[in-house]
């Protein structure tokens, strides 16, 4: 195991996971001296009846004290916005709430983090707290209940909130933005449709694989990533095929949280660079980009990190396959395993899980990534920070090469990769 010359690892979120984990929220809130939480969520979550499951779990805690829901805001938009944050903060104050329960995916949690800054530190404008490390105080208790097994945003210390008037995205980073508790409950992901289960699951898989192979890896991100890959690869197909298999649902949620722990400490590489750009330029869902691009990312870096990619074979395929594969073939086999998993998911979802970029269609059956869009994607990718954590350098032409292969769905021609020096210092 590699001990890097310097690393940091921080995971201050208390993780509670189980089939009935939601029931632990009241006690946890009471122990933090909060009894009137505000629920923040979005339409999709409310529509699936998930808020009701959470409120039903708020039975009286020990010692007769109980938690009452102070307010609920269930119309968070897919893109967190500064005005919305201020609006929610006003409701929070009017209803005299003292804590926040965020139920949903990335945007809900980002919004909740923003609201938490405002209601804890006072003021009406978030702008003041934007940037790295501007929040320096303990905020109000924040409970995160993820409803997709993928984003891992319950483990990250970043919130990105858009200011649509000024057309900027404000990043907020501080350890105090981390939720106090992440509650992983199998009931929350039970109703997730197969295609979404597949893409969010592969999103988490990508987090873990990149955490293990990219530059800021560290011993703890390694072990959490390997555990995550193992949980996801063994359960994703089951969860896609049989949605109400609670065991695999919970395993997937655990895997995703572990992957979140890993990547929030080790950062991610080129799969995310290109994935963010594809999402930004063509509005392709994040998970879809990730599952398509993951094998390409591993292939592109193969000349530097083959020895790490080889390790991935063990959690992906199990000890028997690992032992039966000769050492030299393991990296290729690991990548093949991921491709096969994508193919299996494609079959299991009736073709809704895309295998390559040209196969991505929106609801109206329109192709989302036309080949003409690739240069724009590559240009956007040049401005994404995650490329600096990638083992190999990437410039515009490299992005184009990878994108062209990923668009067609053919394995990357390794001869076309411009290779730098062999080994990277960690």
């Amino acid at each position: 195991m590699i001990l890097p010359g310097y690393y940091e690892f921080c995971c201050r979120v208390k993780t509670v996971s189980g089939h009935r984990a939601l029931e632990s929220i009241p006690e946890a809130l009471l122990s933090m001296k909060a009894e009137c939480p505000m629920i923040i969520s979005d339409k999709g979550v409310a529509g699936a009846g998930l808020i009701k499951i959470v409120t039903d779990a708020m039975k009286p805690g020990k010692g007769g004290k109980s938690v009452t829901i102070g307010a609920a805001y269930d119309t968070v938009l897919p893109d967190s916005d500064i005005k919305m944050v201020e609006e929610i903060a006003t409701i929070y104050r009017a209803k005299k709430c003292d804590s926040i329960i965020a139920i949903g995916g990335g945007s809900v949690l980002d919004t909740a983090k923003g609201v938490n800054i405002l209601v804890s530190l006072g003021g009406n404008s978030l702008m003041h707290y934007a940037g790295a490390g501007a929040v320096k105080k303990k905020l109000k208790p924040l409970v995160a209940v993820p409803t997709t097994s993928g984003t891992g945003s319950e483990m990250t210390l970043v919130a990105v909130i858009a200011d649509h008037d000024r057309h900027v995205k404000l990043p907020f980073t501080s350890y105090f933005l981390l939720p106090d508790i992440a509650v992983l409950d199998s009931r929350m992901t039970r109703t997730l449709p197969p295609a979404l289960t597949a893409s969010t699951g592969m999103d988490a898989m990508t987090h873990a694989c990149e955490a293990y192979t990219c530059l800021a890896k560290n011993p703890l991100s390694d072990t959490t990533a390997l555990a995550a890959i193992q949980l996801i690869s063994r359960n994703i197909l089951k969860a896609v095929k049989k949605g109400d298999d609670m065991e695999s649902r919970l395993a997937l949620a655990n895997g995703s949280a572990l992957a979140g722990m890993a990547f929030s400490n080790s950062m991610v590489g080129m799969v995310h660079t290109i994935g963010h750009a594809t999402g930004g330029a063509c509005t392709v869902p994040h998970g879809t980009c990730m599952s398509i691009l993951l094998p390409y990312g591993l292939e592109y870096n193969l000349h530097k990190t083959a020895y790490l990619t080889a390790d991935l074979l063990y959690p992906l395929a199990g000890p028997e396959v690992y032992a039966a594969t000769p050492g030299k073939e393991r990296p290729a086999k690991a990548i093949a395993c991921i491709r096969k998993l994508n193919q299996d998911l494609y079959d299991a979802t009736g073709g809704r899980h895309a295998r390559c970029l040209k196969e991505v269609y929106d609801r109206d059956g329109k192709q989302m990534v036309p080949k003409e869009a690739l240069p724009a994607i590559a240009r956007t990718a040049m401005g994404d920070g995650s490329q600096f954590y990638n083992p190999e350098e990437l410039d515009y032409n490299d992005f184009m090469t990878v994108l062209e292969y990923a668009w067609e769905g053919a394995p990357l021609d390794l001869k076309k990769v411009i290779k730098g020096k062999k080994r990277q210092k960690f």
Partner: protein
Amino acid sequence: MKSPDYFEFFSQAKIMSGNKAMANIPVELDGFDARKPLVITTREVTRAGLGKKLVKALYDSNVVIGAIFDEVPHHAGISQVRDLVKLFRDRGCDSVIALGGGAAADVAKCVNIMVSEKTDDLLQFIGENRITRHLKPFIYIATAYSTGYEVANNATIEGRVIKSDFLFPDVICIDKSMVAVKNSDMVLEGAMVAFAQAVEAADMPNDNPVVDAYAHAAIRFIYQNLRKGIRSPGDKKTGMALANAAAMGAVAFSNSPQGIVHLVSKALASVTGLSESFCKVVLLPYSIELKLSKKEPFRGDLLLAMAGFETFATTPEKDRPHVALGLIRQLLAEGGKYPRTLKDVKVAKYRLDEAAKAAVEAGGTRVKLKECMTLLEHAWEGKTIL
């Protein structure tokens, strides 16, 4: 690995480990809006020049050290804590740094409780989960004199234990220039405590994937580095790996219920006056044998953590625990002259009974008297249970 039906995990600590890690302390303190720490340490640490290194690391920053108190004795008492609380308040400090050594960390934690809870009565916090709020920023700097218990979520003062998740350090700083141990017995003992903690945590019947992740990293580092650490103590690279393992082991240990090795060692230490770490080292292999002899499902992951994918994958499933046990014994054998049975250190046999009873008393339903006795007797004699 199967997925558990329920688990919880929490660790407040941010681990910063590596070259020039201490130089990052000002930035961390600033993140908490703190700029005047009280440094608490022991004489042996300052005598080794480690206090000066800390002072130098904080040059070119806005951090003023409130004071460096280096007279924490091995068994610190509440009066010391009170003095330090006074010093903390007089100087207007806003954070606590503990520098190496178990006693320093315990005292620092107690000081932090009193200054954060704004009280002069420490006794009310003895027990589990009595602390009610977030404490002041607390940074722990690992040194060669660390024992591995410091970063756990408890503090021991005058033999009484305070346990609370708020007692985790906010930052664990493992700096390359601080951890090189000069003496190979100390290397072995420190590493084996971490090893015992990690193995016990990873081997609990209820799976906890996050605890496993911490424990596996710890086990792997110890297994890979212990031999070199004993052969050439003072080597910085192995020192770093072992210090990392100690921190990870302690976090894993804090998140899992106490196992038989921990309970019995603790009891044995208090009955005989041996060090708890030593007892753990002696008892660990026997506890694994005990488990095997009971035909309990044993998690083969231990072998995976020690020997890596290759060995694990090529070993048939039923052999894995035995191979793992063999590796542990081999590892212990590297300890050379280090005593390996209780007989060797002249523990009177009749005291075992006493220790077993104390362990059962402390552990409640978690351990059975008969098992404790089997474990102790075999460890005394040095003969295998299987």
